[in-house]
């Protein structure tokens, strides 16, 4: 029989280091146990969906950069892909390969941020520095090809903004080899650590039915044994041509989510290496109309973002701007399950669970 004490409600955030952005959680605790968590979101709301109704289709691309700012390339692609689907455009293979390279690089960079900050939440400082060091190299590469460090705006309807040079591709290839070694180092440093393992194993456990009920996706779903990944389940772009695996685990705890993300980085490296090896020649920009006016109709296009199933829904009225533009943010759905997972856990575990969800508030609030 646990000792009951008086309940205490406090506010975690809005600017707490473990809330990654501006997220507030009203936490009610009873001693060390969490009784109830009430997430308060919206601090980063910029009304992107409404703004998008007033922008032409190409003009929306820079706005998508600023939603889930850790995976701007993928956001770009989701919007661009939706418009291309609506227009029925053919994208040159060369462009599509470059897109896949930059998207997977961005996925690795995003997972590195998650890895660093997640361990920072758990009280480990140095992994953060290593992660950001490697991420810096990726960001420099992406900066060089797109012109900006985070807000790439690199995709265009019909292709990409600039072509990749051979020299750039060679450097990406070299870095991927280095990255494989670094991930082994990460495993040495953190993954095998008993203290770390005892903090994450059997913490925040849920099963597949729970994950489906809450609409979780990404690593938060795959940790329960479900292998749903849009790249395989509903293939887009040229992913069917690539040889890669979807890592899954069955234990459904924070540890499983951790391992899945580490393995996903290795899979992304595999994809990048394949793409560089098989990169066909061709134009980097297809034949897109100058004024983009998709036909009347609606379209839903979804991709696998580092955080899960990201979708873009466009209703077109035949003019040059969308009638309705909606974004499905995976981190929003994943965060919604946070109160349900944390009920009855320790405060320290709550932080681990929040970290493992991998939220990016720019994407949650949009």
């Amino acid at each position: 029989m646990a000792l009951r004490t008086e309940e205490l409600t406090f506010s975690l955030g809005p600017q707490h280091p473990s809330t990654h952005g501006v997220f507030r959680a009203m936490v009610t605790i009873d001693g060390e146990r969490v009784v109830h968590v009430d997430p308060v979101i919206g601090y980063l709301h910029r009304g992107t969906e409404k703004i998008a109704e007033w922008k032409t289709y190409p003009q929306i691309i820079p706005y998508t950069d600023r939603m889930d700012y850790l995976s701007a390339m993928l956001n770009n692609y989701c919007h661009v892909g939706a418009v291309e689907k609506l227009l029925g455009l053919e994208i040159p293979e060369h462009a599509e390969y470059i897109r896949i390279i930059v998207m997977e690089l961005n996925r690795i960079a995003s997972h590195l941020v998650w890895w660093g900050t997640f361990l920072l939440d758990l009280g480990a400082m140095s992994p953060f520095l290593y992660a950001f060091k490697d991420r810096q190299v990726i960001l420099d590469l992406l900066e060089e090809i797109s012109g900006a460090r985070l807000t790439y705006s690199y995709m265009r309807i019909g292709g990409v903004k600039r072509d990749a040079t051979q020299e750039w591709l060679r450097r990406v290839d070299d870095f991927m080899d280095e990255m494989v070694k670094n991930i082994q180092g990460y495993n040495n440093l953190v993954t095998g650590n008993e203290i770390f393992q005892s903090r994450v194993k059997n913490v925040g456990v849920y099963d597949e039915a729970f994950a489906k009920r809450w609409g979780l996706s990404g690593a938060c779903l795959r940790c329960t044994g479900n292998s749903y990944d849009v790249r395989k389940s509903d293939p887009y772009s040229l992913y069917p041509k690539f040889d890669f695996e979807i890592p899954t685990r069955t234990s459904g705890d924070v540890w499983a989510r951790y391992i899945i993300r580490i393995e996903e980085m290795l899979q992304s490296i595999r994809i990048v290496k394949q793409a560089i090896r098989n990169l066909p020649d061709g134009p980097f920009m297809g034949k897109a109309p100058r004024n983009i006016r998709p036909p009347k109709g609606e379209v839903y296009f979804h991709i696998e973002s580092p955080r899960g199933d990201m979708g873009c829904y466009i209703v077109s009225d035949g003019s040059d701007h969308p009638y309705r533009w909606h974004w499905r943010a995976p981190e929003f759905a994943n965060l919604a399950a946070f109160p349900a997972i944390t009920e009855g856990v320790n405060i320290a575990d709550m932080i681990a669970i929040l970290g493992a969800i991998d939220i990016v508030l720019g994407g949650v609030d949009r």
Partner: protein
Amino acid sequence: MFRWAKGYAYTGKRLFEKTVTIQYPQQKPKIPEGWRGRHYFYPDRCTACDACARVCPTEVITVVSHRDPETKKKILDDYTIEFERCILCGYCEEACPVDAIKMGDVYELASYAREQEFMTQEKMLPPGYSTDVVVHGQGEAYRGGDYRTKPEKKVNH
């Protein structure tokens, strides 16, 4: 048991690696080609076609121009960017048919007052240009967003 030693060993191994950061104010970063910094504007090249203002997502470019009554050509009178709201997307550079507006390599964008963020032609002159090419005249101002469908048309569906 000696797990901690592994951690130390890893730290020790990476301690003497090459750094990826630079000593910023003393050392300047290398700006890659095609990087998107603050604009350079070439008043002598601009044909006042408004393409940049039309494509700008944040509608911060104002092109002032008038039509020459004889040749019917547009003549640039003024060109400004409300740089506070510019998101450095580079669309203007891409849209310009004569390369009159280019994304530059200026990255030190902080200033003490909002007014300083308002980019006039003088402030956007590329290095080596004298202020002689700057034009100031009275004309019709054009700013992005004006061409968009009117709201009444949009709502009824």
